[in-house]
């Protein structure tokens, strides 16, 4: 198994309610961003609506929408929703 650390921001952090980050375990053969999102949705079903509008960044670089990238335990994943307040 591979553990992926996901930094959470704004609404995602609030809805998941586990602090600054979560760790998601992925089978070694399934270490991609799409699978990561699938696992997050399964473990935290309440985040589904928010997650669909989020940007995913790997090592401080945003992924294209619908891009599925291979990730490893050393990658820093950040889940960033739009913030609209002011």
């Amino acid at each position, binding site marked *: 198994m591979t553990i992926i650390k996901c930094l959470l921001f704004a*609404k995602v952090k609030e809805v998941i309610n586990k602090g600054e980050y979560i760790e998601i375990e992925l089978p070694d053969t399934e270490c991609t961003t799409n699978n990561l999102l699938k696992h997050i949705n399964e473990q935290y079903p309440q985040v589904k609506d928010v997650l669909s509008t989020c940007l995913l960044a790997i090592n401080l670089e945003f992924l294209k929408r619908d891009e599925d990238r291979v990730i490893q335990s050393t990658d820093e994943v950040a889940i*960033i929703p739009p913030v609209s*307040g*002011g």
Partner: protein
Amino acid sequence: MQDSSNIASYTQNHSLDNKEIERYGRQLITPDIGVQGQMLLKAAKVLIVGAGGLGCPVALYLAAAGVGMLGIVDYDTVEIGNLHRQIGHRESSTGVPKCESLAAQIKELNSLVETKTFNTVFTSDTAIDIIKQFDIVVDASDNVATRYLVSDACVLTKKPLVSGSALKWEGQVTVYNYNNGPCYRCLFPVPPPAETVTRCSDGGVLGPIVGVIGSLQALETIKIINNNPQNGVLSGRLMIYDGLAAVFRTVRIRSKQASCQVCGDNPTITQLIDYTQFCRSNYSESAGKVEDRVEKEKILTVDQYNDILKSSTKHILLDVRPKNQFEICSLPNSFNIPIEDIDKEDSIEKINVWVKDDQLPVYLLCRRGNKSQDAVESICKKIDSKFHSQLKHIKDGLLGWAESIDPSFPIY
């Protein structure tokens, strides 16, 4: 003593007068500003959309720096609850339109700056005409619909957009539509579902957070005006500030998206649309009246609840606001189970004791009568249907209580 008209022989290549040189001295000698930068600032016209927590620091710093013309759009008036973060307003301005209040502060700070106020809702009908009068737009708004509107309008009028947003302890800043960079839609093509958006009035926000983000917006605006190719304008990157952890992160954004509906290769949006419909929310952060989503039998008005209190009918009053809000103020004899915990096992156990063993009605309460409806629904999913009729939510919540029953109940 020489005549002051000799100034022209002392200062060449610029038209700054002695007063301006004195006022902007520290800024003039800053590397990469200089007299040319100051002249550019003086000639610049910047529109600030929103005169709230972000708009105040943006306007004050740009005015102080000597931006020649500042436009301010805001339809709202100053309230005392704004002042902990909206530092461009004063107690004495309570009730005054925010754009006028902020323009007055700008005048006091730097009388050389011209202001144009637009005391109106920024809409698809007004946006283009207003934006056209300026070179750069600053998005200091507080709601999703306005953000899409401002971004599309900037693409259509080819204006760079300095965008900032903040909530609770966090903020984001970036520059859109600059030097062929991405627009807001390139990043967020689909608006978030309205029910997932937290407003500052619900989630809270700190003054220094909007202060940091607004200051960064002012700085990026100055860099864009200064137009130095060496300037690392925050385009194609999103800066995220977590004030609680004291961390800044700058994430590289995808470049402009060829498929973007407004700035892409084959745009389908060639004029402004109805953004309230697109986002299913208003051009305003204020929530307004909450609509009924539960059946009539599950609704109790504040007047009906007041009658129940007067008749001393036994019942349970369950307040589902977050703990820190419950601590500010609550109705006597109410219990607190925050909405996040309402469907947890021990909460349901408690509720079952009330409805089953004690055979009491349970009235759900929150600030506005929104979450209390969600609470009724989530509890109904977890308890036996024969007890469902004992659950009701109190319409309009504590704000309704303060408005109709007891004006001495604290409003926050």
